């Protein structure tokens, strides 16, 4: 059986950053990139299922939509134990929102026909929490969001899982496969890649595809295929703390003074 795990290369901002000339995103020169934190957990969950099954019984395929720079994210997953990667990109995909990304991933899933798709519950850069469930909607598959536990025996037609709700309450449910589950932080302890894993990863295959290869038209990707449009991005003017300056000793002394004032 096959588990497909879509992963995203996400940006975090440097201490100092500037907007792009068009004012619709941060200039990439001021960003650092890594795999989406939530995807570390979905990848780990897939690899755990693979390791618990008989050798060769489960294949883990990682997929990303992004330019060549996103290869490092796929390699990281391959180093941890995923079997192969797929990277989809061409210039027409620039400006795709989460729904356009989901449409691309849905086409990859139609080609690959996995029994299970595990995505991160959201991304650590924009936090839309859209891609996984939009993907399920486009495929017409059953889905569960914000999964904090899952129990799956490869070969079975369903699996049981728990969703983490507000306040730490969890809902237990079973779901028919194939299905899409979005994975919450803390479901497992993601591993670090071993040196041996990193060496092996470079030999694992990464297939490259374009929207044309997937049978998608130009109007189905990029801004044309999106459900929202960024007008502008800006640094808001917000209230800011009264900063306590001085040496650590002076700062601590002021904190203690505030504690005494408030506590009486």
């Amino acid at each position, binding site marked *: 059986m096959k588990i497909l795990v879509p992963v995203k290369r996400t940006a975090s901002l440097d201490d100092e950053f500037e907007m792009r000339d068009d004012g619709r995103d941060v200039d990439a020169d001021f960003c650092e990139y890594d795999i989406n934190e939530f995807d570390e957990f979905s990848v780990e969950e897939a690899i755990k299922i693979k390791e618990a099954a008989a050798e060769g019984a489960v294949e883990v395929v990682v997929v990303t939509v992004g330019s060549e720079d996103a290869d490092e994210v796929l390699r990281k997953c391959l180093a941890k134990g995923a079997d192969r990667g797929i990277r989809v990109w061409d210039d027409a995909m620039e400006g795709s929102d989460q729904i356009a990304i989901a449409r691309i991933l849905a086409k990859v899933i139609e080609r690959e026909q996995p029994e299970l798709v595990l995505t991160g519950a959201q991304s650590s850069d924009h936090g839309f929490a859209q891609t996984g469930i939009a993907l399920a909607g486009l495929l017409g598959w059953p889905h569960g969001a914000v999964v904090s536990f899952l129990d799956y025996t490869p070969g079975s037609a369903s699996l049981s899982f728990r969703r983490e709700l507000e306040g730490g309450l969890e809902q237990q449910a079973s779901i028919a496969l194939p299905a899409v589950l979005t994975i919450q932080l803390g479901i497992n302890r993601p591993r670090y890649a071993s040196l041996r894993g990193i060496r092996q990863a470079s030999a694992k295959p990464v297939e490259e595809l374009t929207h044309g290869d997937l049978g998608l038209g130009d109007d189905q990707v990029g801004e044309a295929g999106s459900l*929202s449009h960024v007008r502008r991005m800006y640094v808001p003017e917000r209230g800011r703390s009264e900063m306590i300056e001085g040496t650590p000793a002076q700062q601590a002394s002021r904190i*203690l003074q505030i504690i005494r004032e408030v506590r009486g």
Partner: protein
Amino acid sequence: MAGILIIAEHRQGVFRPITLEAVAAAETIKAGSGGGVAVAVIAPQPGAYVPWVSVAAVDEVITVTAPNDEFDPDVTQAAVKALIEARKPSVVLMAHSVDSWAVAPALAAELGLGFATDVFDLCYDGGELVATRAAYKEKVFVELDFPGKETVLLTIRSNAFKPAAGTGSPAVSDFPIPGLAPRTRHQGWQEPPPSGGIDIPGAEFIMSVGRGVGDEANIEQFAELAEVLGATLGCSRPIADNGWLPKARQVGQSGKLAANCKLYIAMGISGAVQHQWGMKHVENIIAVNKDADASIFTVAKYGVVGDMFEIAEELKAQAGRN
């Protein structure tokens, strides 16, 4: 295309007041939407929730009879889809809740609706609906619009709007939906583990540690400091996820609300919106963080840009002298 449709939430037989925050959001754009505000209640006995949503701003309540009380994304999706097709609202609002996460994106993708999530401000600019949300750990805001979309679906961040109040007398009508073969089956609830005497909701003084603590071995010194200061020790999500402190100490949306807190010290917590949900209402917040741009400094009254370990050592030494 006119008017606003809001999807009400309930869980374990209890109405979820975040629905009234969505009603308040609707009030701010009602004039621009060109129609009334309708709230749909999807439940086995939807009539039971009608009084809860009968606030002044609501013109109509639509009751939809669902097969089960527990949330099923397929049922909600089918019901809202049928409602959109029948009523053609210009805006559909849901709370940005865990249940909405499970249904809103599928609905938007299936119907090709204009779509944005975790929205905390919305307005009409001319005829164009504009939704504002945050990105990159709350460091920037983003304005989104939805060119050419006749219906726009938005999920509303909790605590962004004050719940709508005032008594109203909306018209109530019933809306039938077709039956579905269930694909997901509810099997039960699991309550959070017992708190073992840890009382975050009741504590008046909380000192929380976050990712900045770095290592499990460093937790102990902050536990000692909390004791010296007379504070209840709290934490942010990554600390509980790593098992360094029990879940009962986690402040935030999936943890506890610091409901009675008067003084909150955040050590090495960047201030993710999920954490802020649990503490940003506290009157006196002191944040210690090495990143001067951390979003915690937008909610804290007092800020220290510095090393949380150095500050902790000084606090302990000086508090011990008094």
